[in-house]
């Protein structure tokens, strides 16, 4: 029996060493490539290697909203402050039970209008449509039957007048220059079908007419840890994926899409919870199956500010929803796995998301159980285990800090000594504690998820601090 356990643990050890080496290599590559890329972008901008501000591609900004009476006014006002000329704002109220529609109607002096909707993607029926032309750009409000976020976005696409659409969350604020920055890849390369922008936590930021006037690490520790996490994700791994056209996530909080291709691909899937990831993967599949040359880009200097949860319960809910969305997208497009037709999207992106995002909570929890098993049969070298864990924590903390410091290459963020101290203190906590809590939450996410599909995730909303 002991021999069998020993053999089992030996196999597990081999697997974990391979797993960790691959993961460390990925993190290492993403942080170094991300940091170098941000440095290059900053230098390019300094040396005017950029398109001027005179090129306007018409864009419809879609804001799906459900019970957003607290934030919707600030969000739409921030959209009116963008340094861009050719755009429209379309707010889709997905059957809110609060006063979202009333707030929009009264704040922006909107009038009900009988507008025919060209239904190119199926979605729930509209109940009322309001428009106003009193502002810098046209604003449209569609109130429709509840159908979920994907359904609301599909309605937005049907109502949108322009060839490109940008989707943002109703609790997000766009930086004043974000629209001109996010359309640049389209001008740089005509084959671009989608562009993802950078999402940053707005907790702790003071924003005035789309400009960040003060940005510090949030007071709330949970939010601060998410700042580190967002830096690692947006200022590192997405840049690496962008190198080989391998981004299979465009955040629902900030993404630009070519409308005709999204319609041809069938729009957002309202049967999944992670509609943003599903659409990005779908676009890869659609373009490759139809032999259409395409690029899905990610830009670091187009920034959207969004609220991150400050309570553990809200964070758990959000991560649970994300994990279910990831599971649904990965399962729906499982034919990508090890499929040479998809090249790096299959062998790097899909593999990464499968093993290091979808399966990682199970693998990590399995690792903890085998450690306990090894401990119980006295087959573990405890000092070495502690040393190895220590190396892991230090290494991952260094990576997190490298990604955090990479922000100096972005135009608008500055480092403050107290923020640096906070980051140094929290990175180890994030890696050694929060990560395991999240692993447990993600592992439990798939239990009973079918009952809650097509619902809007709720987190406690706060008024956005914009002036």
């Amino acid at each position: 029996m002991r021999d069998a356990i020993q053999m089992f643990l030996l196999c597990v050890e081999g697997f974990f060493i391979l797993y960790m080496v691959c993961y460390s290599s990925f993190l290492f590559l993403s942080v170094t490539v991300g940091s170098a890329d941000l440095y290059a972008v900053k230098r390019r901008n300094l040396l005017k290697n950029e398109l001027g501000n005179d090129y306007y591609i018409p864009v419809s900004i879609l804001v799906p909203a459900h019970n957003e009476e607290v934030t919707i006014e600030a969000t739409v006002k921030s959209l009116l402050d963008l340094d861009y000329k050719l755009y429209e704002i379309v707010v889709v109220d997905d059957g809110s039970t609060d006063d979202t529609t009333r707030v929009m109607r009264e704040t922006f002096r909107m009038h009900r209008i009988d507008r025919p909707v060209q239904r190119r993607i199926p979605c729930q029926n509209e109940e009322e449509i309001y428009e106003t032309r009193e502002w810098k750009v046209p604003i449209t409000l569609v109130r429709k039957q509840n159908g979920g976020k994907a359904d609301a976005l599909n309605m937005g696409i049907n109502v949108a007048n322009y060839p490109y659409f940008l989707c943002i969350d109703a609790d997000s604020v766009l930086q004043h220059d974000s629209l001109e920055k996010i359309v640049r890849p389209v001008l740089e390369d005509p084959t671009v079908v989608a562009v993802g922008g950078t999402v940053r936590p707005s907790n702790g930021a003071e924003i005035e007419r789309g400009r960040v006037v003060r940005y510090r690490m949030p007071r709330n520790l949970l939010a601060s840890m998410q700042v580190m996490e967002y830096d690692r994700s947006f200022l590192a791994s997405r840049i690496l994926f962008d190198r080989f056209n391998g981004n299979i996530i465009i955040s629902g909080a900030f993404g630009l899409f070519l409308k005709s291709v999204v319609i041809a691909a069938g729009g957002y899937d309202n049967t999944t919870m992670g509609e943003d990831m599903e659409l990005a993967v779908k676009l890869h599949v659609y373009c490759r199956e139809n032999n259409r040359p395409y690029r899905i880009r990610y830009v670091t200097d187009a920034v959207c500010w969004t609220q991150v949860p400050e309570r553990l319960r809200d964070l758990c809910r959000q991560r649970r929803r994300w994990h279910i969305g990831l599971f649904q997208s990965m399962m729906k497009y499982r034919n990508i796995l090890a499929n040479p037709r998809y090249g790096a999207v299959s062998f790097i992106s899909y593999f990464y998301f499968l093993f290091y995002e979808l399966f990682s909570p199970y693998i990590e929890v399995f690792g903890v159980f085998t450690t306990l098993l090894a401990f119980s049969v006295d087959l573990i070298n405890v000092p070495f285990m502690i040393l190895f864990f220590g190396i892991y924590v230090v290494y991952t903390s260094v990576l997190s800090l490298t990604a955090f410091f990479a922000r100096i290459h972005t135009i608008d963020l500055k480092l403050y000594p107290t923020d640096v101290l906070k980051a140094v203190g929290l990175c180890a906590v994030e890696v050694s504690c929060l990560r395991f809590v999240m692993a447990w939450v993600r592992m439990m996410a798939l239990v009973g998820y079918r009952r809650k599909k097509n619902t809007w995730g709720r987190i406690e909303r706060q008024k956005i601090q914009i002036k």
Partner: protein
Amino acid sequence: MGTEVLLYGYGLVCLSMLVFNIVYSLHLRGDERRLGRRTDEVRRRVEQQVQAMRQAPPGTPGTVPAGHLAWMSRRLSRVNFLLAFERLLEEHRETDDVFLDYLRQLQPVMLYLATAYLRREATQTAYFCHFLARHPPRRYEEMEQLQQVLLSFLRRKDLYCRINAWKALCSLGSPDALMEALRELGKEDGQLHGKVITEALLIYTGDPDVLIGRLWACFDRFSTQIQRAVLDYIRFQSGGCRGPMEEILRDPARDKELRIAAIRYFARYPDPGVEDILLDFIRDPDPLRWEYAAISATALAQYPGQAVVDALLQAMHSPNWYVRYNASASLEAHGLSYEEMLQVLGGDDRYAREMLTYRMESRRLEKQARAAGGARHRPEGEEAALPV
């Protein structure tokens, strides 16, 4: 053990990056100060020189000594000093004759810099092109060689090198070089967005009529994408190209985008001679050719006559949303009120009715907005057709 070593190695590299980022961050804080110092240094030298030129005896033009040109060549071949020099030129917008003369005499330096930046990394080359586009040379002797160097920049892989070189060539104003550049840009691996090409052509500093003549002469040698950008440029620049535009419009073998660009041209510069083909487009029931119908519906707003009104009324029954939308806007431009249109169309076609009702209400909202001083984006009487 190997794993640990690997992790230590990775960690060490990341740690060095961390240190680099911290040092770089500290270095960045002094960036503005350093640029200011360099600008002061260049300013001092340039002002000394301009002052010496001012003191030259009347009637004898002051000349810039070779020593100064050599100093400028050396300094400006460092990109940070070129940045400083650009800042100086931006400050000197209100230029007097002596300063302009100084700049004219400085042109050999630009030619030297063009060859110096040819060997630099792409971002620096692109910046040099940007500099030339902002401050084009003022003496023609060096132009030919400079253009050849810029044309070679167009062949480089870096996108911004190509974009800025293209802008610089447009600002130099030589049609021959532009024709060669457009052929280069039309190659499979060097294509730029049509908007970038058109916008740069619009800053062309030479005679636009001469340029347009050359563009037509070389038109068939360009790629379709370049042809489209050229047609857009001509639309913004000149109403005197009806003949070749009509040829494109009537040629079914031409690319769809080119024919649509020609329709847009005749929307801006109406010509009764093409009314028949615009009517053919709008009457075409083929759903695959809806884009021709939709754009023609907008163009026909500028064409008076009962036949046009009848065709637009007929288009209100089109199954395509955009055709109906644009037709209703054009009918309004013909002086028909939406109430009249509703009467003419009768109440049978729900789609036509809905569209007209929507247009009526939109119009009402626009009037209200204008009365309230809003709708800054759209002046009165200008109805935006939906882009398709």
